[in-house]
């Protein structure tokens, strides 16, 4: 991991909130991401793991500038050292920044997938696209199919190929692997790894965390709209004792191969967050301090953790 060069993407103190109707014409702000920090260096894959609904996909939308209209964004985002303004996002997305969308509903339902992957680029990248399709084991005639004719796994593979096509500097892959069989998922991750090794970077949002640990350099764990831990992937492979935050440990224990044991309770709803540490209501080692104020980020053993008791 090249720490010494300039970060490709730097996010500091990012918050995203949604304005929505509560009663009648009364509006409320619902804060879904708060105080989020994340830095991505060229040459690395940063995996984002964490609870569903913790704002992982919103982060991708925020970086690309495609949040819905009722969203408000605060904080600082810098790409290659320069502020990431809406104009710059518009320029960069689709060329330097590429997205693998989470939902297969992102396809245009009335367009054949081959033409859709090529997009408006001229000259058409058809050759390269065919190479990518065949590397993913998609049969030649796939490009002539409409999205409704695809299986879930095929759709995912096409979404990944589409994002790899422009040769972007930073790929935001939002759950690229569900529906793929194990070898296809491994192939997709191998391609991300090759990209990263060529000096580009990947933000890999995933629930297949056991796969992510194998390919990523660092793992950021999200909970209720903020990062609770950022650690080298090797710590996650090493097991719960190498991890710093109780939520990361809980994730590890819930993997089918590690006991399949979930912790009690659920992530708090964005409109009803606890006052102190967001994880405190479910935490086995909480104290009075945890319940009164949000812990700051601390650096421990080459990782960052947002917990008073992390070791």
């Amino acid at each position, binding site marked *: 991991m090249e720490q010494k060069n300039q970060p490709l993407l730097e996010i500091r103190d990012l918050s995203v909130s949604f304005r*929505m109707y509560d009663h009648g014409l009364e509006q409320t702000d619902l804060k879904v991401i708060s105080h989020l920090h994340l830095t991505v260096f060229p040459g690395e894959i940063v995996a984002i*793991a*964490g*609870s*569903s*609904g*913790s704002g992982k*996909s919103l982060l991708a939308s925020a970086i690309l500038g495609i949040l819905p209209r009722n969203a408000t964004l605060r904080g600082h985002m810098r790409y290659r050292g320069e502020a990431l303004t809406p104009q710059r996002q518009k320029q960069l997305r689709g060329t330097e920044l590429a997205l693998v969308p*989470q*939902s*297969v*509903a992102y396809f245009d339902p009335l367009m054949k997938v081959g033409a859709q992957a090529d997009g408006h680029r001229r000259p058409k990248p058809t050759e390269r696209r065919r190479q990518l399709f065949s590397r993913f084991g998609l049969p030649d005639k796939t490009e002539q199919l409409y999205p409704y*004719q*695809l*299986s*879930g*796994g*095929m759709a995912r*593979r096409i979404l990944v190929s589409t994002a790899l096509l422009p040769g972007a500097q930073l790929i935001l892959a939002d*759950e690229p692997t*569900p*529906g*793929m*069989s*194990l070898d*296809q*998922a491994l192939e997709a991750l191998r391609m991300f790894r090759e990209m990263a090794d060529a000096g580009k970077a990947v933000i890999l949002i995933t*629930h297949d*965390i*056991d796969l992510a640990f194998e390919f990523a350099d660092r793992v950021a764990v999200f909970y209720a709209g903020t990062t609770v831990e950022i650690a080298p992937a090797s710590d996650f492979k090493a097991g719960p004792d190498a991890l710093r935050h109780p939520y990361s440990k*809980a*994730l590890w224990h*819930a*993997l*089918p*191969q590690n006991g*399949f*044991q*979930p*912790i009690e*309770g*659920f992530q708090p*709803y964005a*409109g*009803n967050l606890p006052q102190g540490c967001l994880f405190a209501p479910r935490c086995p080692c909480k104290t009075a301090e945890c319940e009164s104020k949000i812990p700051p980020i601390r650096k421990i053993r080459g990782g960052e953790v947002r917990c008073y008791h992390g070791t």
Partner: protein
Amino acid sequence: MALEAKQVFFRYGNRQPWILKDCSLAFEKGECLAVFAPSGYGKTTLAMLLAGYLQPVKGEILLEGSPLPKSGVCPVQLICQHPEKAINPRWRLQRVLEESGNLRDDVLDAFGIEKAWLSRFPRELSGGELQRFCVARALMSGADYLICDEISTMLDVITQAQIWRVVLKEAQKRHMGILAVTHNRRLAQKIATRVLDLTASNGADAPLPASSPLAL
């Protein structure tokens, strides 16, 4: 007492290639069958056939020896792979749940469904949150058989473990049959009583990987 597919053939249109050819399988109440096959093999099609969303071109789907009922709540319920496409986008979530019966607090609590979510529209929730609604509404309908088409790939591992525990507990209590389509062999080891690889010699049982299913 079983749900079975008997020599089922299926294709989407007369000129299309066959998706499923002479596919047979059966599973009984009280068992959890995990089904494997490569992507694009026709697992989702098979799931839709078993739940009565599609009719086989040849062959039949039998529920305890007779075809699926044509009216009323289907005793075989399907939970889809993409929750965002399985929920009416113009209904508030309360209406989505109430379609399958009265709200049951025990089910809402078991899935961690917040009361505040009930008045929201589907696009305002995340994929994982929506999937909990899909599972809850399938369980509330009082079905005898559940077809789970990769229901937990959208979920974080803690929620995955929570949801499967609720589903298996409910299944045990009501003696339901479950067919789970998945790519995750480690998950299958934990939840299934039997594993079937559709590519292996026309649906012969594959040996269950060395691990016992989850004891509740």
